[in-house]
C-alpha cells in the first residue's frame, strides 16, 4: 500500500568517523506506506544510516528528513514520528512486560487511561497479550522481538525503523514476524527494515536498498534491481546420462554466441550456462541437442533470488 507522498528522504548523506567513511554521498527517497528493506554486508553503513535517521547521529554533510522534519535539527519531532527498534532489546531487570510498556508509554506522555488501552492494543497487534505479566528478562528471543515491536508502536509513529527484526527467530516465529510487518504496512506505516535473512525481505519489501562500503549500490523494487543486475539469464539442462555432459557443453559453446559460465556437474547430471538470448533462440539449441541424441530430462530457467542479486552487487562493490 503506497500513499505516494515522500515520507523519508536522505540527500547526499556522508558520515565520517575520523578516517573511516561510514556513509558516502547516500541519497534515498521512500514513499509513505512502503516497506523498504535495507541490506548490505557487515560494516556496510546500515546502522549508521539508521542512527542518522532516528536522530542519534549527525551526518558530516548532507541531510535527512522524515515527513519534512530534519532528522538532526527536529530531534523531538522525529521521536514522535519514528518508532525505532534497535538490534538490542534493551531490557530492564525485575520488570514485567506490562510495566515495561507502561514506562515507555509514560515517557511519551501518553495519559494513564489512554496508555492502558494503548498497551492492550499494541500487545494484541503483536500477539503478545499473554506475556503481559511475565518478567521481561525471562522472555525468549522471539517473545522479546514481539514486545520490542509493541514498544515501538506505543506512540503510534508513522515510520517504523526495525533493525534485524527477524534475527535469531525460528522459522515459525519468522513467519509470524513477516505477517506482523505486513499487517503494520496495511495500517499505513512506512517500514524501514534491515535484515540479513534475504528471503524474508524479498517476500515483504516493496523496495530494496543495497549498501556496500557506505554507498547505495542499488535501490528500487526487487524486479527492477534484478533486471538491472542480471542482464543474462541462467539455464539448466537436466540429463539422464552423465556421459553426455561434455558433448552438451561443447554444443552450447558452439550454438549460443554469448554463453558464459558453462558448468557441468556429473554428480547432478546437469549443465548450467548464462545467456542473454531469447527463448526462441534457445529452442533451436534444444532441438539441436535432441537431434544429436542427447537424452534431455528437463530444460529450465533458474530464477534469481535476492541472495544472488545481493551477492552480485556486493561482489562488484567489493571489487
Amino acid at each position, binding site marked *: 500500500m503506497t500513499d505516494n507522498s515522500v515520507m523519508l528522504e536522505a540527500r547526499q548523506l556522508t558520515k565520517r568517523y575520523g578516517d573511516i567513511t561510514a556513509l558516502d554521498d547516500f541519497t534515498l527517497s521512500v514513499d509513505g506506506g512502503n516497506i523498504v528493506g535495507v541490506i548490505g554486508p557487515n560494516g556496510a553503513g546500515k546502522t549508521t544510516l539508521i*542512527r542518522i535517521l*532516528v*536522530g*542519534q*547521529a*549527525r551526518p558530516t554533510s548532507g541531510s535527512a528528513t522524515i515527513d519534512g522534519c530534519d532528522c*538532526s535539527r527536529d*530531534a*523531538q519531532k522525529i*521521536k*514522535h514520528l*519514528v518508532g*525505532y527498534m*534497535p538490534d*538490542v*532489546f*534493551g*531490557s*530492564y*531487570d*525485575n*520488570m*514485567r512486560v*506490562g*510495566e515495561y510498556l*507502561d*514506562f*515507555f*508509554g*509514560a*515517557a*511519551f*506522555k501518553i*495519559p*494513564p*487511561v489512554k*496508555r*492502558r488501552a494503548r498497551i492492550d492494543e499494541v500487545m494484541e497487534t503483536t500477539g503478545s497479550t499473554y*506475556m*503481559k*505479566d*511475565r*518478567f521481561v*528478562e*525471562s*522472555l*525468549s528471543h522471539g517473545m522479546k522481538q514481539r514486545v520490542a515491536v509493541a*514498544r515501538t508502536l506505543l506512540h503510534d509513529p508513522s515510520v517504523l525503523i526495525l533493525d534485524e527484526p527477524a534475527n535469531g527467530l525460528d522459522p515459525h516465529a519468522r513467519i509470524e514476524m513477516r505477517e506482523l510487518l505486513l499487517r503494520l504496512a496495511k495500517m499505513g506505516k512506512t517500514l524501514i527494515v534491515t535484515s540479513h535473512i534475504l528471503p524474508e525481505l524479498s517476500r515483504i519489501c516493496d523496495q530494496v536498498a543495497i549498501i556496500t562500503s557506505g554507498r547505495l549500490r542499488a535501490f528500487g523494487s526487487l524486479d527492477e534491481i534484478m533486471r538491472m543486475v542480471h542482464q543474462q539469464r541462467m539455464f539448466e539442462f537436466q540429463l539422464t546420462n552423465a556421459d553426455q555432459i561434455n558433448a552438451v557443453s561443447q554444443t552450447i559453446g558452439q550454438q549460443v554466441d554469448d554463453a558464459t559460465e558453462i558448468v557441468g556437474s556429473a554428480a547432478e547430471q546437469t549443465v548450467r550456462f548464462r545467456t542473454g538470448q531469447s527463448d526462441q533462440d534457445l529452442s533451436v539449441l534444444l532441438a539441436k541437442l535432441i537431434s544429436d541424441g542427447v537424452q534431455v530430462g528437463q530444460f529450465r530457467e533458474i530464477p534469481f533470488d535476492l541472495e544472488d542479486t545481493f551477492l552480485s552487487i556486493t561482489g562488484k562493490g567489493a571489487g
Partner: protein
Amino acid sequence: MNAIVRRELISILRTWPAAAIQVGTAVVFALLVVAQWPTGAVVDLSGVQAERVFRLFGYGLLTTLLLLVPAVPATSIVREKKQGTLTLLLNSPLTGWGIYSGKLLGVLGFVMLPLLMSLPAAAACYAMGGLALGDVLKLYAVLLLATVQCAAIGLLVSSYANSTDAALRLTYGFMLLVAVILLGPYQILQGKPWPYVADIALWLRGLSPIPAVVELLRQGDVGGQGLSAVAGNVYRYFIMGGAMTGLLAVWTARRLKQTMLDRPRPQGVMTDDRSLGQRSARRLFFLIDPQRRSRAIGRFTNPVLVKEFRSRRFGRSYWMVRLIAGCAIFSLLFSYAATTSSEDWGVETIGGILVVLQVALIVFITPSLAAGMISAEHESGGWTLLRMTPLSAGRIVTGKLLSVLWTLLLVLLATLPGYALMIVIMPKLMQQIIYVLICLVLSCVFSLVLSAMVSSFFRRTAPATITAYTVLAVIYGGTLLVWFGRDAPFGHDTVQRVLTVNTLAAAMHAIKVKGFETYELIPANWWFVGCATVACLGVFAWRVRRLTRPE
C-alpha cells in the same frame, strides 16, 4: 597449566586497572619505607619506628585486599553465564573442581602480584629492626588466607547471581558482614555472664581477618576492653577462616555442573489472579505484595523515577519496608544499649559505632544503586531506547538521582528514632547529633553523586561499581589509615588535612569519639564535601547531556 587459570590470569593482567594496582602498590609501600628510613647516624634500637611503618603497611595491605579481591571472583562465573561461555565450560571435560580451582588460582595469581610487590617493603621494615621474622611471615599467611576467603565468597555468590552488578553488591555485602559486622556480637557480649554465648561470638569473630591482623601488628585486640582483651586471634582465624573457605569451595564446586543452568522460566503468576485466601495471606506476609499488578505511572510522575524503583529488586516497596524497619530496629537497640550500658561504653563509643555502621551502610548501598545509573543502561541497550523517548537529559538525571536519594534518606530517617532517644536521655547531645546528621546527609549526597558521575564514564556496570566502591573506600577507609599513623609517622596537621575529606571522620569528631576530638574537621569537611558534590554533579550533568545528544 589449567586452561582456565591461564585464561583468567592473562585476561585480568591485560587490563589497565591491573597494571595500575601493581604499580600503585609498589610505589605507595616504597614511599612509606623511604619516608621512615633512618637518615641520621642514630639507630632506633627499640624498633618502634619499624613497627609503626609495619603497622601502616599491614593495615594498608589488608584494606587493599579486602577492597580489590572480591571484585574479580564476584564477576567471574556470572560473566560467563551472561556471555553463554559457562555452558561451553560445563559441557567440556573439565570437572566442577577443575573449573573452580582454575578460577580460584587465576584470582590468586593476580592477587599474589601486589603481595609480592610489597615484599621488598616488608623486608625493609624487617631490616630496620624490632620486628620478628615469624610475625612478618604470619602476616603474609593471614593475608593469603584472607585472599582465598574473599575469592571463595565471591565465586559462590557469582555462581548464584544473575547479573554482574548484583554479584558485586552481594559479594561486598558478605565481605562487610564477615570482616566487620561479625566483630559486633563479641564486642557487645564480652565480659557478660553468659560464657558460652560469648565464646560462640568469639569464634564467630574468628571468621574475620581483622582481629588476627590487629594482633600481629601488636595493637592488642579489636575493641578489647581493658584486661578482658583476648589473644589467639591468629590461630582462631586460621581455623575458622580456613574452614569457611573449604566449605564454600566444596559448595561452589558441587554447583558447577550442567544442571546449574537448568531453570524454568517464571510464568508471571499474579496475586490478582489468586484466591481471596491466598491474597490475604500474601498481604499479611509482604504488607506490599510484590506480585500484585502495578498501577500505571501517574501523569505528573517522573517515569524514570518509577522505572528505577521497579527495575531494582531491592527497590520494590516490600524490600524498602523491610530495609527501613531493620534500620529502625537496629538503631533503637543500639540507642537502648547506649543508655543502659553507658557505664561500660560511654555514649561516644555507642554513637561512634552507630555512625560507623551508618556510613558503612551508605558506602555499601550507594554504589550498588547509583553506579549502574548510566552504565547499566548502556549495558542492557536501554540507553538507546531512552534517547528515542522525548524525555530530556534533565528529567532522566533527576529521576535517576531521586530514586537513589529517596532510598538513602529513608534509611537515614529510619535511624532517627535512635538519635531522638539519645537526645531525650541526654539533651546536651542535641548539637552533636545535629552535626552528625548533617555529616550523614552529606555522605549520602556525596556518595550518590560521585557514584552517578563514575557511572556516566563506563559502558558496563561491573567496572563502574568497582571504581565507585574503590573511590569511596579510599575516601572513607583509606584516609583513616593515615589517622592510624597519627603522631608517627604522620603529624597532627597532616592527619587533620587528610581527614578533612572524610565525612565519617567529621561525624566521629562531632560525636567526640576518642582519637578524633583533637582534630578540627567541621565546617572544613562540609565545605570540602559540598564543593566536591557540586563539582561531581556538574560533571555528571555534562556527561549525560553529551550522551543524550546526537554523535
